[in-house]
């Protein structure tokens, strides 16, 4: 028993999806988390609540609504049609959009916590030294929030590897385009081809454990010094 060519293709697509999702959700989630971590106002609270929705709504339900919104009858689909773009459902870009929405809570939460913990003081100090806002963010805040960025990156990557329900709806399970690993395992299980399912699922478990270990190694706890006691 070994991996079929179809299995290998799904693994490649899955890794491509997870990597793209990680990059896009950090680029979006970083500034969003920064904005959310500043003053506490009502709109911010609403947006903060909205970003946690993917954790609350069952994936297939979320998938159905995304499909509807991005489809030809939905507002986003209509907008895409108006500008002459290809509609998102059943494309790799559509998968990325869905996957980013699902990973956003895993990116935003750790970053908001880290930014809040840093507080205003490092920024004020940077300002007195003449640093602009962006400069201060990149040279002062980002390095200090490095562990949180690492957590966010790995969580979004890992989560999109395992994501199933939403991707299933938006992707349409097209071989070589949108069929990902989790779907392939599901099909094997439902078709009662347990051997092949175990092989892929086993690989997934090993991968997940290695990822989590890598996260801990890249993000070492500060060594205890005598003065810490």
């Amino acid at each position: 028993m070994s991996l079929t060519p179809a299995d290998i293709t799904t693994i490649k697509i899955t890794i491509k999806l997870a990597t793209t999702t990680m990059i896009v959700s950090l680029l979006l989630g970083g500034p969003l988390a920064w904005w959310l971590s500043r003053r506490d106002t009502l709109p911010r609270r609403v947006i903060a609540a909205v970003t946690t929705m993917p954790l609350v709504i069952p994936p297939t339900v979320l998938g159905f609504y995304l499909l509807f919104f991005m489809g030809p009858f939905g507002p986003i689909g209509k907008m895409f049609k108006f500008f002459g773009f290809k509609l998102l459902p059943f494309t790799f870009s559509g998968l990325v959009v869905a996957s980013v929405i699902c990973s956003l809570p895993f990116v935003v939460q750790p970053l908001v916590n880290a930014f809040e913990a840093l507080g205003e003081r490092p920024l004020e100090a940077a300002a007195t030294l003449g640093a602009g806002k962006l400069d201060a963010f990149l040279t002062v805040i980002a390095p200090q929030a490095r562990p949180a960025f690492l957590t966010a990156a790995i969580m979004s990557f890992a989560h999109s590897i395992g994501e199933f329900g939403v991707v299933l709806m938006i992707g349409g399970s097209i071989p070589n385009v949108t069929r990902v690993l989790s779907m392939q395992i599901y099909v094997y299980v439902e078709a009662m081809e347990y051997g092949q399912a175990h092989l892929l699922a086993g690989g997934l478990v090993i991968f997940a454990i290695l990822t989590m270990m890598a996260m801990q190694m890249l993000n070492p706890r500060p060594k205890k010094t005598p003065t810490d006691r």
Partner: protein
Amino acid sequence: MKKFMVFLAALAIFIPSLAAADEFYVAVASNFQVPAGEIIKAFEEDTGHKAIPSFASTAQIYSQIVNDREVDIFLSADAATPKKLEDEGRIKPGSRFTYAQGSLVLWSATEGFVDSEGQVLKTGKWEHLAVANPKLAPYGAAAYQFLEAWGLLKGLEGTPKIVTGENITQTHSLAVSGAAQLGLLALSQVYRNGKFTSGSGWVVPSDLYSPILQDAVILKTAENKAAVQAFADYLKGEKAKQIILSFGYILK
């Protein structure tokens, strides 16, 4: 006196279980969810028994039964799974019967999109056709047979023109959202009392795919439950037949 107390205690233990003997579990394949709900409602009103339904895919119900979940009667979406249970000696002997035969439909959420001959599939402007996974869903297998019969399968299989739902319910969602302009669905999903509930459709001639027989079985554990047998009989009766037909199923 002591004997009387024992008698009372025995009564207290047995009476509730006697009263509850009329309750039983029906496991229903998802595609039959709505008709099953109506049949169960009519059955409960007519007989006073209580049927507790649960819905899942046929494969899921099968693995639940094999793993000792309590199911008294199982309404499958295919004929193969009940047959398999029979071969494994898990059912009441002789209890397997066909309760409905499904029809395949070419359907679109857009009014007037599907013509009365289904020619849109060959000539129309469409990007995606939603089909259930042929490995998992009987309607998916039927859809592939139909596409093969029309000589379209070769050009479509494995291309982005076919999008796959892992079961027929999901395939329905892909088509209802309009994201797939066309879908090969179960007629029962889009049809009620002689007409389409929305959109447009064409019923695929039944000689273009093997019959989609939906079989039911009484499980071995329910062998002596009268209420379960009563439900099986009710399912074969006139009232249930009318409900089943109204959803576009065929009955032979």
